[in-house]
């Protein structure tokens, strides 16, 4: 009896967990839940590649799969929701490793999860738009329907100077060069999913079927290619200027705490401080802390929405006046400024001037 790819993945992960975590922590890992518990576990048990590897999996599906594996004596139930590998399970996994690599070489969910979906959306719509441009077809139904993505591609094409033929050939050559960097990856896995002017891309299920691949394996291999592309084009921006431009500056990894990152994403989507505090069920002051943290790290983060320009100026003058970062003293000079506003302005303008 051979084990399936799905079984191999689960055996691998459960082996790493050593029965010290429940199967629900596995579920959270696959889903990419951004809780400190899940993130710590991913690092502690060296499972970071699998972070958000199966974002659409359901709790029930995973539980059923594990139950089946228990019945096949691949797993042993240690206690409620804690499972360890049986000797058969361990043996089968060992056999599996002799013929296969797991996890796929470039799979790095923790590093790339927040860019993966975005990168794919942009790449696939860009290819479709380019294809219709070069074949001079005016009307088509976009394969991605998020407004942000469509706005992005419109703006992107407008910004490029090389004309429709030039854009297509740059895109083609960069993809070709990038794919040829590593012969172990099979670009068909991704190309089958692309939509052009006269053909609609395949769904992941269809592509897996056509390649004769187990669906779970296909999903990981697809992520593997995306992570390979994202990694390569961000490390070698000079080689791949076009593909690199699919990854926006603001989306590149930032050294935020998770909670701040979440606030940052909401701010980017236009939510106000009040709305975010309501949505996230956090105190206003907490959200304000996040904003100060963001202002510290992101140089072009616009403060105008939080501090009127003239007030910012007065706060800065007050800071110079007192030549200290003492909030209380500054406040005596700029009476109408809140502590939040003062902290924000100081964060933005760096403390070096006043140190």
């Amino acid at each position, binding site marked *: 009896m051979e084990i399936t790819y799905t079984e191999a993945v689960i055996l691998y992960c459960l082996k790493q967990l050593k029965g010290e975590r429940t199967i629900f922590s596995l579920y959270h890992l696959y889903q990419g839940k951004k809780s400190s518990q899940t993130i710590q576990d991913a690092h502690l048990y060296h499972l970071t590649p699998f972070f958000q590897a199966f974002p*659409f999996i359901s709790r029930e599906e995973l539980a059923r799969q594990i139950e089946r594996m228990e019945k096949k004596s691949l797993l042993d139930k240690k206690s409620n929701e804690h499972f360890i590998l049986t000797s058969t399970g361990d043996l089968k996994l060992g056999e599996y490793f002799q013929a296969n690599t797991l996890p796929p070489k470039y799979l790095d969910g923790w590093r790339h999860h927040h860019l993966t979906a975005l990168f794919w959306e942009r790449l696939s719509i860009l*290819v479709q738009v*380019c*294809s219709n441009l*070069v*074949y001079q077809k*005016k*009307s*088509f*139904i976009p*394969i*991605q*329907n*998020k*407004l*942000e993505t469509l706005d992005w591609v419109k703006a992107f094409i407008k910004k490029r100077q090389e004309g429709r*033929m030039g854009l*297509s*050939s740059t*895109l*083609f050559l960069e*993809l*070709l060069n990038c794919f040829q960097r590593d012969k172990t990856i*099979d*670009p*068909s896995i991704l*190309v*089958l999913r*692309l*939509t*052009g*002017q*006269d*053909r*609609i*891309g*395949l*769904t*992941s*299920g*269809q592509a897996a*079927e*056509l*390649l004769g691949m187990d669906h779970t394996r296909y999903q990981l291999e697809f992520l593997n290619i995306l992570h390979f592309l994202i990694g390569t084009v961000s490390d070698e921006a000079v080689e791949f200027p076009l593909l690199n431009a699919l990854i926006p500056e603001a989306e590149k990894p930032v050294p935020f705490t998770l909670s701040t990152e979440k606030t940052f994403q909401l701010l980017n*989507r*236009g*939510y*106000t401080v009040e*709305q975010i505090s309501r949505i996230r069920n956090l105190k206003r002051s907490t959200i304000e802390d996040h904003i100060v943290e963001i202002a510290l790290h992101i140089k072009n983060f616009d403060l105008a929405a939080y501090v009127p320009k003239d007030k910012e100026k007065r706060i800065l003058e007050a800071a110079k006046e007192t030549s200290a970062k003492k909030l209380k003293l500054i406040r005596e000079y700029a009476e109408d400024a809140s502590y939040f506003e003062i902290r924000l302005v100081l964060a933005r303008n760096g403390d070096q001037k006043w140190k």
Partner: protein
Amino acid sequence: MKAKGEKRAVALNSFLSPDQKKQVLRSLHEYKFIFISPEMLGVHSVLERLSEMNISLLAVDEAHCISQWGFDFRPDYLKLGHFRSLLGNPLTLALTATATEEVRADIVKCLGLEKIHEFIYSVDRPEISISVEEAGYQEKQKRVLELAASLQGPGIIYFSSKKMAEQIAAMLRGKGERAMAYHGGLEQENRILIQQQFINGQLNIVCATSAFGMGINKENIRYVIHYHMPLQLESYLQEIGRAGRDGSESIAILLYSAGDEQLSFQLAEGELPDQFQIERLFSSAEEKSISMSEIKQHEELFTGYCGFTETQWRFSADFIESRSKEAFSIIQKKMGNYVTERLQMKKTKIFEMLQYIQHQGCKRSFILNYFGEPSSSRPQKCCSNCQLNNEQYFYKKEPVPAAGPTYYDWKKELASILRQVSETDEKEQIQ
């Protein structure tokens, strides 16, 4: 519309983020066509902005949704009357494909229309032959596979259950058909892909739930099969009406097994909360002193506590929210009555559907009669009760060769998508 080249069209719906909404609202006057989804009719900023503008035509699509008699009554549509008066009662065009007399009267009343012209086109589609077949519960599956294998495609097979749609699609693929399932449980990206593949001719059969079809314009659909009976004649007509848009002869086949209506009753009941759930909802809200206006903020609590499905929850929350100024006990009572009434209506609809299935006379006449139309002259291949004794006429004219496994050359493929010359092509040219 944008796909057809009209750039001055914009959509206002709940998928917009606050930023996008602001941006769209600011530039609203630059557009010629504004598409607005019903739930946006309750958004103050949208109403305010629109009332400042000079709207020359208000078009209401699927207008039957405004009527409580209609089979897919949507409470949001009731706001349209107020919306229209806010716009200064502009010229209004109400469109619906399936409306009985009752529904039409309701549309006029709810929209506050005064001088009206009714343009009634016959619901009859003479190019579609109609067939109802009884099959035992076990035989049905065999029969649908047989039909799909012999009928000239492209075709749609409708199911009431996602699982069944998936199963049959997989079986058809196993037999070499280019078939996929389509239902509300799919990821957004896959939905778009499957729909576009079907339109583009890459798929020959879609095994679908009623989620499929809205807004799809494919002219050459040759057959529509129903594996389960629809919940009402109106949606049946809408679904089979997707066949033969090019005017060529097509066929609609409904497969019925005795007892199928039980599934229909279950589905109808599942769309609304039952009396027990309503009771629990109100008693737990009272216990936790949650006011009626903030009901939507406690989705998880109530869903868990009352065992709501998503549809049940959405209905309950909307119902309560729109009446949150009234007293607690009154809302509860109204909701109870409303649910009883709706359920009764849905059951009536199912019985009518059943009557249609069991009707011994001409099926086409039954449908026309239902929509208050006089029977017209019957087309030659009318229905299964008018000597359409077999569907062979609709069989494939020539067998389609099954696509064998072909070697996939990604370089060539990518080059062709982007209109570039690939190395493989170069080699071929040299040879």
